[in-house]
């Protein structure tokens, strides 16, 4: 009673991860607003993490190596997001000050 | 237990509907709050169901962060002038 029905739920989450990845990949390619693009990149990361964690869940005791990798991935994701946001702000300010606005 | 958990998650769907069909920003934050409350309830049920106390810790962290984020977002969104 206490365990996940192993195969099916994990396959579901695996597919979900791939679907989220693809959806946000499409978003990344088609969206224009920089913040939305950044959100799309973050969602792609989340999709990847979903695939990794559902792969880790295949064995009865989840795989600590993959979990640790995903924790590292979270750190990298938030650092990159913070840096990218500042870049966006700096670029917008430069546009407003002198450079021509983007077409 | 599983039916209760599913019912609670279905409540979250209402929260989502409110978030996507919101008239004001406050409505959206309200939907977020409903979602986190249901998340906490789900985690507590999961802790009992799988008899694993760690989900209660996760629920506590979620409750703390839900409180923080409403304060932070309200403060950030207030009068932008």
């Amino acid at each position: 009673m206490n365990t996940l029905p192993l195969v099916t739920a994990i396959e579901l989450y695996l597919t979900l991860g791939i679907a989220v990845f693809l959806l946000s990949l499409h978003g990344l390619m088609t969206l224009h607003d920089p913040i939305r693009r950044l959100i799309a990149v973050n969602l792609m990361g989340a999709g990847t993490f979903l695939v990794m964690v559902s792969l880790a869940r295949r064995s009865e005791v989840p795989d600590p190596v993959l979990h640790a990798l995903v924790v590292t991935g979270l750190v990298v994701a938030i650092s990159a997001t913070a840096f990218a946001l500042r870049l966006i702000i700096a670029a917008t300010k430069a546009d407003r000050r002198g450079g021509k606005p983007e077409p | 237990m599983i039916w209760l958990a599913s019912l609670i998650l279905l409540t979250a769907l209402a929260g989502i509907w409110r978030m996507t069909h919101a008239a004001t920003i406050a409505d959206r934050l309200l939907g977020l709050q409903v979602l986190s409350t249901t998340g906490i309830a789900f985690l507590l049920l999961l802790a009992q169901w799988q008899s694993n106390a760690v989900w209660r810790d996760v629920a506590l962290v979620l409750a703390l962060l839900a409180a923080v984020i409403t304060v932070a977002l309200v403060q950030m969104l207030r009068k932008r002038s």
Partner: protein
Amino acid sequence: MSPELLPDLTLILLLLIMAWGALYAPQRSDAMTLFIAFGVVVALIWARLDAPDLALAEAAIGAGLTGVLLMHAARALPDELHRRNRTATYWGALAFAVVATLMFLAHLLTDDSLLNAGLLDGETDMTPRLRSLADATMGDSGVEHPVTAVLLNFRAWDTLLELLVLLFALSGLRQLFPRESAPDDHATSRWPESLALMAAWARVLAPLLVVTGGYLLWRGSSAPGGAFQAGSLLAAAAVMLRLTGLLPPLRWSSVWLRLAVVAGALFFLTVAAITGIWGEGWLTYPAAYSGLLIISIEIFATLSIAITLSLLVIGEWEDLRS
């Protein structure tokens, strides 16, 4: 289909709606709120997938700090730079995701080679072997919880690089601020006067966050939790206090702040150097001190992670350049 799958299916539906909304919601603030909600649902999914460390980290980072980060940046930007989302893109996205996922599923179900290679059976391919290796040597690592042991001992390099990534992001961030303060920078960095209720509530909440962070750090050696989760809770407390005006600007000019930012990486490198020169090799802890060393590294790492994260999230000119 068994009823066991019902919560999973609901979670999946929720997550797909969130992802959709976070990408294509008509307004940007909608998209950001839905992205925060996405973090909450992902934390629940980690709970379903038996990954408590990730659930803790995601609840603190994904559902908390990332949202504040996005909102904070969006304040400094004009409302929306481009508005060119036509309905056609929605259908395109839907068709793309559905077709590609179905193709993957078909591949998974028809191609026996994946199943034969043990992709879905577990225990037959490489990663579980890594895991059993980790389990087998864990007795020597000085802590009891496998994820912490992996993070701090077997993959010590990785944790060190994690601290360094945070440091690099912070120093990159500093470069993006001008040396001299522009007059309009001050205007964006000042928060409105906080409501009395808000300040009082922040005063209650902050000690709770700190205590919970300490609790996660303390139990990190024997159960899920650890430096990163604890650090992000502390960062959340700092961010909240800063926003409600209860904490003064952090001031990069203060030596203590800079020391706190580099403390984790510095201590880790010192330990690495000492074990490299006088011990058995880089980051091979002597068995007798292993537990103690790991705990002290965790404490310093927590401090650094907390300060760096809060600077990353709400750092302004006066925090980072003055």
